[in-house]
């Protein structure tokens, strides 16, 4: 049991610090955003499972297995005496594991509820304020001069454009923007982003959570860009990005702290456009996918082994 706990602890530390740092500095994710996005999700899930699993296995070690520990402790949850083989450190580890799991789950639920409320409000407002765009289903146009495009995900989805955007862009560029927003909606990027946002807000002091959320947001933009390139071509997408990027009132929204897409992300997206589509070698992609599976499978396997006890 202690060996398993130690293994999980080392794994949790690796996934919490060196692995995300290496990944966020790597060059290949921009060439293969879908694979990179899968890896980030595996790291977050595997890291969380390892961290909680490590505490759980260590705390249960006096009883020899997770099930035996549950059997020994559950009857004494509210009334003593606690079985003498459990020391203060074991009980502290178990309490921490339960607290951490509850904290992460509650944060995810809270973030989801808040997002849903915000979405409902957005739908109400754009239904009253936006006009439908002829020929484009589920697309609304707002009468505002600032060029802006965004999407509202959920069961009901909407792509929102402004009149300023339509004025600033040609037909092909507009097609690129709409394809980009549709890709966000069709590929359910909001769910991935939501999970990482919840992780970040649950562990705000955790430096990697911030980096992970940013990387994931950028990868989602790149995936949406790939759909736009497919629909309208690289040049149209680049022109659209530059038009929209420079058309905003400079300084008017200077206090919009924490806004996800910023200039560095735009640069990274622009750098991918033009030239041949580069794909990382097949072997690398295969290795990354295997690593992603392993990262999640290892803590699960360790927990399953500990469930019945190790002789």
């Amino acid at each position, binding site marked *: 049991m202690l060996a398993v706990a130690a293994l999980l602890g080392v794994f949790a530390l690796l996934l919490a610090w060196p692995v995300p740092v290496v990944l966020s500095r790597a060059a290949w994710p921009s060439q293969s955003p879908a694979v990179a996005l899968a890896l980030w999700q595996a790291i977050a899930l595997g890291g969380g499972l390892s961290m909680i699993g490590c505490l759980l296995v260590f705390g249960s070690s006096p009883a020899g297995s997770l099930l035996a520990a549950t059997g020994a402790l559950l009857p004494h949850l509210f009334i003593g005496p606690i079985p003498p083989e459990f020391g203060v450190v074991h009980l502290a580890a178990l309490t921490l594991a339960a607290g951490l799991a509850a904290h992460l789950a509650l944060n995810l639920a809270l973030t989801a509820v808040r997002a849903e409320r915000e979405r409902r409000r957005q739908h109400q407002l754009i239904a009253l304020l936006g006009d439908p765009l002829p020929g484009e289903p589920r697309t609304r146009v707002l009468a505002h001069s*600032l060029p802006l495009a965004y*999407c509202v*995900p959920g069961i009901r989805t909407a792509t929102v454009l*402004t009149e300023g955007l339509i004025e600033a862009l040609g037909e092909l560029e507009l097609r690129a923007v709409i394809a980009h927003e549709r890709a966000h909606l069709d590929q359910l990027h909001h769910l991935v982003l939501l999970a990482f946002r919840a992780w970040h807000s649950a562990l705000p002091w955790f430096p990697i959570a911030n980096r992970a959320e940013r990387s994931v947001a950028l990868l989602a933009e790149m995936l949406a860009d790939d759909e736009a390139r497919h629909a309208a071509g690289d040049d149209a997408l680049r022109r659209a*990005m*530059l038009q929209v990027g420079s058309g905003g009132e400079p300084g008017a929204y200077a206090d919009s702290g924490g806004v996800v897409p*910023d200039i560095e992300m735009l640069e990274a997206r622009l750098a991918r456009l033009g030239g041949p589509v580069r794909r990382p070698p097949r072997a690398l992609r295969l290795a990354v996918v295997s690593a992603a599976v392993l990262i999640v499978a290892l803590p699960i396997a360790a927990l399953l082994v500990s469930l019945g006890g190790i002789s």
Partner: protein
Amino acid sequence: MASLGELERSVMEVLWSRDAGLTANDLRDALALRDGESGRAVATTTVLTVLSRLERKGFVTRARETRPHQYRALLTREEHTAELMHEVLDRSSDRDAALARFVGTVSAGEAATLRRLLDELSRS
């Protein structure tokens, strides 16, 4: 059969086009006039339902000192749109859960940097 959402929109369009407050009956008549022969009559009770929904959403205010109550738009359509745009642009990091934007707001200086970067890329 028009949905409640469509009716809300029609009611707001009438209210936005008038300066004075309107009663539910005025609105019913205005809607019938607007839709002409092709439209179908809307009952005053339906208009009242739509109005109370719009009041809850913060689009309509009701003057209670007169009988029947007079309704008017709280803000102009432009003001509502501007407010919505501010909400989308000013989202702090924990409020942006529902939306993804095509490109962030970029200042003129940053845009110039981007253009230079692209020129360099295309020259190389």
